[in-house]
């Protein structure tokens, strides 16, 4: 696979290293749209203690995994990602502890991508400096919107000014690789308002931008509000128009779309996410996190932890006696692996190698896609040379391919 601006060998991605995802399940308050597993600090009996002891739990879990799975064949760690929740609620010391321990346990090269997600309200220039000193080199800032109304509707606790200020603090602290997350399609958001958000965001000159359409997730307060008609989702046409605005505006700031929801300047694609899309191996630590090891069984194994901090803490503290309490796992079949390869690969503007797919699965990609010919006819899917990819129009119909 080759991603513009970054040369990557054609060989299987999973052959070279694995990624590490560390889930930090704390947040200040639950955003209305969020269905990731996190616990508001106020609901914990001893929040400070929980935060302080959490890094040790992650390390303990990793050492247990090292005993259960032979990680040798996967090579080196190629990216580390602190996600959440709000990982910037951990102290720089906590992060440093984790990275140092990992270095002694598995060996971590200095130049690999180490990302931390940040909520603008939880950082300061000093704290951000601390993260850099701890070994973090990439910041993913949850800006979401630069419109005050939209931020309120989403239930974000920060203001637009705070988000912009936090970005500048990150630059001042020394971050040279910053990504910002934006959400479009928030109830009440006009096309004009979104354009303003986008223009302001572009001015920040981030290296990377993730642009997600707001999805109503099961069990979220926002979904309930929509169901109760307290707020109304904007029409699909607006979403499409906003995306069009983004795809014209962002390239002017050197941000090129390389995946359905992701834009970057040259050489700043997110290595960690590219590993997901390339069906690479990764280990997730912390409650609710997911793991995938491609060399277990014939087509790899996926497993996921329970979404329960208390249970997780208890299990890890007694890890010598107890086995890890995972919520579930699946050993992937060839059919599922092929579907995954396409479902993930077609998210990238680069698409997938047809020959590579045939070599891996002995079948044409078209046999796995139920709407192959229809999408080709409609110009949503294209084959050029050895590459199968969704066209710009087709990107909006990614789920229709299968």
């Amino acid at each position: 696979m080759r991603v513009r601006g970054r040369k990557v060998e054609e060989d299987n991605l999973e052959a070279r290293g694995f990624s590490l995802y560390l889930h930090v399940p704390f947040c200040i308050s639950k955003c209305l749209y969020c269905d990731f597993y996190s616990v508001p600090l106020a609901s914990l009996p001893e929040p400070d203690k929980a935060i302080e002891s959490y890094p040790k739990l992650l390390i303990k879990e990793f050492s247990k995994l090292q005993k259960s799975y032979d990680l040798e064949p996967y090579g080196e760690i190629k990216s580390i990602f602190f996600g959440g929740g709000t990982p910037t609620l951990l102290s720089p010391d906590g992060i440093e502890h984790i990275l140092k321990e990992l270095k002694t346990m598995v060996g971590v090269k200095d130049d690999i991508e180490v990302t931390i997600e940040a909520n603008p309200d939880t950082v300061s220039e000093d704290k951000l400096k601390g993260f850099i000193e701890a070994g973090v080199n990439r910041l993913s800032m949850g800006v979401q919107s630069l419109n005050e109304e939209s931020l309120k509707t989403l239930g974000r606790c920060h203001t637009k000014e705070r988000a912009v200020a936090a970005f500048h603090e990150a630059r001042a602290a020394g971050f040279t690789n910053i990504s910002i997350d934006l959400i479009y399609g928030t109830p009440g958001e006009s096309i004009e308002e979104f354009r303003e958000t986008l223009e302001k965001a572009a001015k920040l000159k981030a290296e990377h931008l993730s642009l997600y359409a707001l999805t109503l997730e099961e069990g979220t307060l926002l979904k309930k509000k929509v169901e109760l008609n307290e707020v109304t989702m904007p029409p699909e046409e607006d979403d499409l128009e906003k995306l069009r605005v983004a795809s014209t505006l962002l390239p002017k700031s050197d941000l090129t779309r390389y995946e359905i929801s992701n834009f970057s300047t040259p050489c700043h694609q997110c290595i960690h996410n590219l590993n997901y899309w390339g069906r690479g191996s990764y280990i997730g630590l912390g409650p609710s996190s997911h793991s995938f090891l491609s060399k277990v069984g014939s087509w790899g194994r996926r497993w996921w932890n329970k979404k329960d901090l208390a249970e997780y803490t208890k299990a890890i503290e007694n890890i010598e006696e107890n086995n890890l309490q995972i919520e579930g796992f699946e050993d992937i079949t060839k059919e599922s692996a092929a579907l995954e390869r396409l479902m993930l690969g077609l998210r990238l503007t680069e698409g997938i190698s047809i020959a590579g797919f045939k070599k891996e699965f002995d079948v044409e990609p078209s046999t796995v896609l139920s709407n192959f010919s229809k999408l080709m006819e409609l110009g949503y899917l294209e084959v050029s040379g050895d590459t199968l990819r969704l066209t710009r129009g087709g990107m909006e119909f990614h789920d229709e391919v299968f």
Partner: protein
Amino acid sequence: MIDIDKIRNFSIIAHIDHGKSTLSDRLLEATGALGDREKRDQFMDKMELEQERGVTIKAQTARLNYKAKDGKEYILNLIDTPGHVDFSYEVSRSLSACEGAVLVVDASQGVEAQTLAHLYTAMDVGLEIVPVLNKIDLPSADPERVKAEIEDICAIDASEAVLTSAKQGIGIVDVLESVVKNVPPPKGDRNKPLKALTFDSWYDPYRGVVVQIRVYEGYIKKGMKIKFMATGKEFEVDSVGAFAPFAKEIMELGPGEVGYFSASIKEVRDTSTGDTVTGAEKSADKPLPGYKSVKPMVFSGLYPIDSVQYEPLKDAMEKLRLNDSSFTYEPETSTALGFGFRCGFLGLFHMEIIQERLEREYHLELITTAPTVVYKVTKNNGDVLMVENPSKLPPTQMIEKIEEPYILATIHLPSEFLGSIIGLCEEKRGKQRKIDYITTTRVVIEYELPLNEVVMDFYDKLKTLSKGYASMDYEYFDYEAGKLVKLDILINGESVDALSLIVPKERAYYKGREIAAKMKKIIHRQMFEIAIQAAIGTKVIARESVKALRKNVTAKCYGGDITRKRKLLEKQKEGKKRMKQVGRVELPQEAFLTVLKVD
């Protein structure tokens, strides 16, 4: 050997809900045929489907050992009969294996049309009738009024009718005593060649075809060579038994006895219900009178959703037909649905039952097209065609006339519902023949109705409008010419053969609009606009459109949770397999039933 004088063969005739199944269960319990361990409410309704729908579909038998008050041991063979109007044929089959019938009438609701139809069949074959008034525990029960009604309508003596409450277990022994006393024992000579009537049969994966019989003359036992008189096929009997009520092997079945045998019969076609079984060496000179064959009245296409299920579907239908000869099938091809079968049924309910049995018992996934009747089409050149598939109707300019089948419906109802039921019959293009007040509160009406109107939802409507009190029986009547046209449904300009239907001209516009509107709701948005049109010939009479889907994309694969997303797509793929492609458009299964659901 069993003393023939101690055998009683009887059926129970009742209207749905009048308590036949409960009474059957009580009889089984009272005779010890069903221990507590095996007790399950409504044992006689064996099939899962029957339990669910609360009606008997297939006849079942049970052999009851009963020590009567005269101190003697009797064998009572209870032959259960189906209760739905579609299954009159099965009823006549079961009844001809009996000497008597217990007539169960609800002590508050009185006689219903269907009960009457079955009763007349029973009287036609010369059965002794044992009247029973059930549900006497209900506050609304009025045994004297209902007795009078039975005598009035059915012309039988009801003065000694047994009063029961099957639910409460009241009067159960009285029923048994009355059967012993009033139903005559069968007649027959053990020394004559075997003569047995097959009245049911089914396929058992271990034993091959199992045939249920009533022996009239001679006997049948294991090791004996037998012959089916209609097909001439010979087999060696490898087991003989009776249902007591579970299958139990016994030595032999003699004259007057009811039971089953198996003979390693592999081919379903080798047996036919109504055929006579005799000895291969010592044969009877002529067969027992068989059954009249019943003609299916309603036709529809059955298609496997997945074409690989075509052969399994064919096998399954062959097996089902074995014990349901009223169901017919013939291969047909549809441009929209591929290879399938045009099937004939006794009615809509029968159709639903068959479809459900195919899906549940044989694990098939099917698309059913809208049911239709057989139209008699006279072409300009004088040729007459019988059309059982609307898409086979010749072009309008070649048609001289189209005739459709009519039935003569007899409807029993409490007089308070007369107005609404007459309204229903008129709406369904009915012609009134007569109205009779049986009593001051009960009415019988007769209507000539186009069968096409009846097969759709007439029966359901009748029940709804009368709060369940009206009952109906019908017989095939005649063909009558009508102003009928073919209504085509076009999807993105392509006519979908499986959606065509024949409708009265004056209703075509309304139907066309309704169908198009319903289809709009059923067809999901796709990557392009979908035009739905209803047309008569080349004239488009209704148009709807399904707006194009603008996007369908998941923003991100959450935190490495690939499994959830992939499973959603796998489910979606499965769903798509169940869709039918018409051009580029995916049509869901329900679309083909839409035409059915429009008034």
